Each structure stands twice: as structure tokens, then as C-alpha cells.
């Protein structure tokens, strides 16, 4: 795999995970990071840098929206919400990921 393809794959994965995380409702970046960390038991780990880049990329693509609000401890935080477009994209990507994963899995198993 070339570096760029790997970076794209990585980005795609991060985006997918972020979108999935936001299905729970509006969250700020820090709580998204924490949730992913807790959920995946550190199996999926990426830097916070990648998370924030993903958030801003997704917002530019119109998949999420942001607005300023107050965090649990009353700090000013930027909250992200999934848009309708984001929700649809998540569905499509999830389906695609599943079939991709299934294809790879079956491929790997055949080879065995």
C-alpha cells in the first residue's frame, strides 16, 4: 500500500467512526475522543489531531454541523451534530464497509 492510499483509508475510517459516534447526539471533540477510546478499548486508536482534522473535514463536507455551547464543566466548547446528509453518508459507508470487510474476510479465508 502506498502512503497516500493508506492515509486515505485511515481518513475514511476515522471519518466513519466520528460519524458513528455523533449518532448519539451533539458532542464536542473532547468527548468524542473519550468515547471512541472507551468504546474500542484502545483497539482503534488515533491521535486527537486526526479526530479534529476529521471533524473540520466533515463539517466542510456538510456531514456535520457545529455550534458553540457550554461543556459539562461550563467551558465554552464547540459541539458537533450529525446532519441529515451525514446520517445518510454513515449508512452508505457502513454498508460499503461491511461488504468490503466481508469480501476481504472471505478472501482471506479462502486463501487459508
Amino acid at each position, binding site marked *: 500500500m502506498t502512503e497516500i492510499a493508506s492515509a486515505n483509508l485511515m481518513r475514511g475510517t476515522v471519518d466513519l467512526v466520528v460519524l458513528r459516534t455523533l449518532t448519539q447526539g451533539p458532542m*464536542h471533540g473532547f468527548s468524542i475522543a473519550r468515547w471512541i477510546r472507551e468504546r474500542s478499548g484502545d483497539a482503534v486508536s488515533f491521535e*486527537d*489531531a486526526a479526530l479534529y*482534522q476529521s*471533524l473540520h473535514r466533515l463539517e466542510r463536507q456538510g456531514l456535520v454541523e457545529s455550534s458553540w455551547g457550554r461543556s459539562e464543566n461550563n467551558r465554552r466548547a464547540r459541539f458537533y451534530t450529525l446532519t441529515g446528509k451525514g446520517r445518510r453518508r454513515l449508512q452508505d459507508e457502513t454498508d460499503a464497509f461491511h461488504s468490503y470487510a466481508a469480501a476481504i474476510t472471505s478472501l482471506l479465508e479462502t486463501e487459508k
Partner: protein
Amino acid sequence: MGRRERRRGSHLSGHADPGREVDDELDFHLRQRADELRARGLPAAEARRRAEEEFGDLAATRRYCEAEDRRRVRRERFLGLPRAVADELRLALRSIGRRPGAVVAPAGILAAAVTLNALVFTVVRGVLFSPLPFPDPDRVVAVDEVTEQYGLSRVSYPVLAAWRREARTVDDVAAYLETELPLVRENGTTRVRGVAVTEGFFDLLDAPMLSGHPFDADAHQPDAPPAVLLSERLWRGTFGADPSILRRTLRLGGREVPVLGVVRDGRGFPDDADLWVALEPTSPGLMEVAGAKILVGLARLRPGATPDLAARELGEISSGVVGGAPHASAVMLTQRLLGDVRTPLLLLEGAVLLVLLAACANAGGMLLARGVRRRAELAVRVSVGAGAFRVAGGLLLEGALLGLGSGVVGLALAAVLLKPALALVPDDLPHAGAIALDPVVAAFAVGLALATGVVTALVPALTGSRTRPSALLRESSPGAGEAAWLRRLLEGFVVTQVALAVLLTAGAGLLLRSFVATVTEDPGFDPTHVTVMDVALPDYRYPDVGARLSFAHELLRRAADLPGATAVALGRNLPISESTMTSPLLTADGMETGSVQVALVSAGYFDVMRIPVREGRGFEGDDREGGPPVLVVDPDIRTPDGETIGVGSRAHSYYGGPDGPDGLRNVVGVVGPVRHDGLRAAPPPVAYEPFFQKGGAAGFSLLVRSDAPAAVVAQAARTLLGSLDPEIPADRVGTMSARISRSVAGPRFYTVVLSVFGILAVVLALAGCQAGLAHRVAARRREIGLRMALGATQPGVRGMVLRRGLALTGAGAALGLLLSIPATRLLDAQLYGVTAGDPVTYAALLVLLLAAAALASDLPARRAARVDPAETLREA
């Protein structure tokens, strides 16, 4: 305002500084993470360092996120424009809804002005610019013979035939003759406007037939069977769009005439014709003599030919025909048809544009004042981070919304009012029947309203959104006064309105004075209580003098029994009836007078009309066939050497030839002068000859003076005529007063319309003046309070505002007067009895205007005087 809060408002604008936003967001993350780490026991500085370390490449992320945000913002700004517009639209509607009063007035005024403009422009365009029904209307000319003696004359048949044969500069030479024909149907006889046309007439027109076909060449041969083409209007109206009309015959002019075809509305000519018949060159006398110049000639210019060239060629041809005129004339048909109405209609259009301008100035002033009052609101929006561009755009959008809304409402109103408005238009305007609201006019009127809304929003938009918020907030706190340029602009609106009002009322005043001068002219007879019925005897039933005379005698005899009749008479060539019969009088010593109007009237005429008999006697019962030939004259008839013709003189007209033994008639009376040619024309000399001594006539009028209600007399007269002969149309009955009134319908129309415009403009100007002063008083409340604290009295303050109001009005009036000097010149041709510079009109106008302005200024002046100095000083 703190930096933090300003940023909080940033989502309002959609494009605050992305760099700072990203910084804040990442800072929040790092602080949260550091808190966590501190909770696990790390020292604060170490926690922060660790958090940054865990984060990854902070600088690169910041750059990446910023770049993404900038791309998003840029795209939103352009692709998201519709949404921003929708947002601003909501905002605009909310701001209008919050104080509808401030918007309803200017919007209403704009809407009303749009309505007026749409109506006037629709009518004017309808009349002036609706195309003639010819394929190439700019090439169709009206052609006439021009004689040495009478100047422009109509065309005689032999000359027309010569033109058709020989002319090289024109094609399709044709002519027509307008006649009225009795159309007999089961439910009565009506008079229809018929047009008798020569060969070639329908070749001039552009696909005129709805069904059937026009006349062929044979139809114009002598002894050709008669045929008629109906107008679509007549076919649909009178004949209920009968699909079998082409198989029907009509009883028309005493003959059964088959219908040959139906002419599409708007494609026939003249456009008010009910039907067309073929002109047959049968009646000798008329059709073979070049002296009988009775036809209206039309022709189409050949490519390259000009009207002048055509006139020269046609003149050469006609001078070669025996009895033909030595010259000819050819002018564009449009010019001929619209010559009389073009100027007043264009003036009307100009006037209504002035009204629109005044309305724009008025609405503009109000909207501007509203915008200025709202600058504080704008300053707040800018200060909480809304982009200046966006705020300005929002304001313009609001202005556009207002203008467009007013325009559409105005247009809808115009569509509703068009029909009633057309009823006010005088009948004699060409095409007036076929006018509909025109899309070009509609677009134009709405466009103007839209432009007004946008332009008046420009000032607050540009000044309100660009200025630094802090300065603006300071400046726009109420009562602190405002920039000098803004004040001048607002006052400029007031001055403009007053000037326009003066301009319009000056025109209206002059027309009004002319109209009053016209209708108060003494016509020379008393039109009240006189009923007139026009009678046309069809020649197929009354072929000779004997039949006509016995019918006339019988009608007159029976008319004496009409309800309330105190005097009855028959007459031909009545005053103010557009009829004209002129002839010189030939005196005993062989002298010929100038041309005089010759009226054929029966005994009783001078009693019915109450024309004073100054000398001798009027006609009596014996002045009939077989009696001694007599003549009554008015005092203005003179022989070339200036001698008047009085009682005892002997003379005759050329009408009906000489009757006495020596061919002369005894003048038995002199009667007062009569304004025969209309109220605005000086009384021409009139000679009266006994109706019954001139063999009667096929066309004449019955006149009845009666104290009974006019409608009753009219109905009785109709019944009487119907009982004498049902085939004579009895549809033209009315009062003499109505005929006079109709004769001034044009001037009355222009006077009424311009007066309405003038009144509107004055009301607008006064309202504008009042609103302008009120705004100014509100804006200067603090200064006024200060003055009062320093000793200015209430009357002093009131006087100050009043003086300002009068100064503005005075300036506007001066400007208006200056403008009206050249402008009223244009009215000259419409004026009667006053000059364009009439001092009485202007003086009355100025006095009224200044008095009204003083009244209008008083309300804001009183408000100014009530300012409480203590309160305003506290506010400062």
C-alpha cells in the same frame, strides 16, 4: 463588549474568523485533557505538556482545520447564499412585522403610484402604440387631394381611379367612406357604423378574415349584388356568434344583404366599424365627378418611396384629371390618426411619472428615516459579528421586498381598476376599446417600485453597515442629532415633493381654469330641457322630396304632443354636433359673403333653442314649401366690403339652389350668434333657411323643449318614431346639455385626471413635509431640550420648526415654479381663456400650498415645543 462574547455571536454571521475559532476549540480540548491528567496527579505544567504531546501535530492540525473552515465558509458564502437570503428574508419580514406602520404608509403610497402609472401607461400605450391592422403599418399613408380653395380635401372617385392606375410611388391605393346604416332585426332597428370600401381596401389589411372572404373585384362593379362583412364584435354581440352567419342575410339599408364574412377584431379598419360593404360606383353625380371629394384615401408606400415623393406624384396625377385637385397630400396614417391626441396623452404620461417620482420621494423619505432610526439595531448586529456585507445585503433585500410587494399589490389593483378606469376615457380616443394591461407596462411599473425600495435602502445599508459600530451606536442614540449630509438628503426629498406638487398643480390649475372658461362660455342658446333625436330616413323608403316632407310634417305635428313639450322643431346642421354645412351667401347685388354655416330649421327652432331674435322675426308656420322664400341671419355675416346683411336684404345660400322668383330670399330676421363649432371656437356666422323650403332632408333632428324629465321625453320620442316607421333607427336620443358635455369630454378627462394627480402630489408633499419635520424634531430632541434649558420659549421652538417647514415648502415651491415655466408651455394647445403663465393660477396655488404647509408643519412644531428639557438633559 468583551472579546469572548463577540466570538460567541459568531454563529450568527456564519463566517467569523476561523483561526480564532480553531484556537479556542483546540484550547478547550487541551484544557480538558490536562484537567484529567491533573486529576491523576500530574502537576499543571506537566499535564498541559502531556496533553499537547498526546494530541499529535498541533500546528499542522490547526493549519488543516483552519484551511477546511475557510473553504467551508467560502463555499457557504456563495453556495449558501440562498439560505443566507432566506435568513435575511425572515429577518426582514420580522422587522417589517415589528413596526408595520412605518412600512405600510410608504408601501401603500408606492403601490398607489404603481397603480396609477400602470393604468395611465396602459391606456396611453394602448392608444398610441397599438399597431394598426396593416402588415407594415409604418408604410401606410393617408392620401388626400389638396385644392387651392379649401386646402386638404378628401378624394374623389375619378382621382382615386387615376391614382390606382398610374401611381408608381404607392401600391394598394384604396378608399372608404364611413356611413351609418339602419340594421333591421326582429327586436328593432339599430344604427350601425358601416364602412363602404373601394376595391383594394382589403388588400391593405393583414389577414383580416375570421371566416368567409373579403370582397372580390366583381363586388365593386355597378349592379353587383350587395354583400356585407361583419365585425367580430357585431357577430359575437348582436348575432350571438351564430355559426351559420355566412348563410344568413341581413336587412340592411332596405335590402336583404348576404353575409360574406366576419372580420377579426383588431384586424379591420377603422377599428370601430361594425360592418363593411362594397362601395359601388353607381350613383352618378357622386362617383363620376371629381368635384365630389368624399372618400378617405389610403395607400401603401412602395419600397424607397417617402410620403413627400408620393404626395408629389399623386398631385401630378390628380391635376391631370378633370376637376381633380392640383396637389395631393400623403402623411403617415398613424400621424393622421393620433395627431390630436398624442400631445395630451404624452403629457398625461409625463404627469403620472411625476406623481410616481413624488411618491418615490415620499416613500423614500419615510424609508430613509426608518433606516436611520434602525441604524442602532444595525450597529448592534455588526458589533456582535454579523458581517457588514451581510447586514447591507439584508437591508437591500428588505428594501427590494418592500418595493416588489408594493409593485405587485399596485399592479393587482391596476388590473382590477382597468375596466372602470377605461370608462372614464373619452370615446373619441382611437383603440380605446381594446386596451388590456400590458406586460411591458407591468414590468416597468413593478421595476420602478422595486428600484425605489432598493435605492432608499442603499443609504442606511451603506452608512449603517460600514461605519465602526461604536461610532454608530453613539451617533444613533435617539435625539442626538444626525449628520448634516443625511439631514440635507431627507430635506431634499421634501423639497422635491413640493416642487413636483407645484408642477402638477400648476398644470391642473391651468387646465381647470381653461375648462371652467370653456363651460361657462355662453353657447348662444339655452341647452337645458332640450331633447334631441336624430332621424335618418332610409332612401329606399323615402326616395323623393314629397315622401320626406310629408314624414317630417307628420313627425313635427305629433311631436307637439310629447310629454311636457312647450316647443318643437326640426333642424339640420345643429350647433356643437360636429356637423357642418357651409356655403357663401350670394346677395342681391351679386356679392358673395365669406363662408357661413347654413342651418335648415323649421318654425319653432328659435323658441326651442331660445336663440334671441334681435330684429324682425324667426320662422313661422307659413315658412314652408309654397310660402315666400325667406332667410334668417346672425349679425356676423358680412359682404366682402364689410356690409352686414340685415332685415330687408336679399340673399341665398348654395344649398338646394335659389328658390325665389329672382333666386333670392328675403331676410326676415336677425338672431343672436351661436357657438356652432364648439364652446372653444368663436361663433361663426350662421344663416338659417326654412327646413321645409329646402325639400327637407334625409338626415335631420327633432328638437323638443319640455319640462318633463329628459328620460321620459326621450322614451316618448323613440316610441313616436317607432310608431311612424319601425325601420328608422331611433337609437340616438339625448339632451342638448349632454351633447355639449360630450363635446368637452376630452378637456374634462385631462382636467380631472391631472387634478387628481395634482391633489395626490400635494397630499404627498404635505405628508412628506410633516414626516420630515417630525423625524427631524425627534432626531434633535436633545438639542431642542438644551435650547429650552438655555431659555428658548415654547413658542420660539414651535416657530423654529414652523419656519423650517415653510422654508422647505418655499424652496420646493420656488423650484416647482421654475420648472413649471417651461413645462406648462407644453400645455399651451390645451388651454382656453388662460395663458400658460396665468398669474391668478400661480398665486392661488402658492397661497394654498403655503397655508397647507403651515398646517402640516404645526403638528411636529407642537411636538417640538413639548420637549421636556430636564428629561432630554438627563438622557444626554
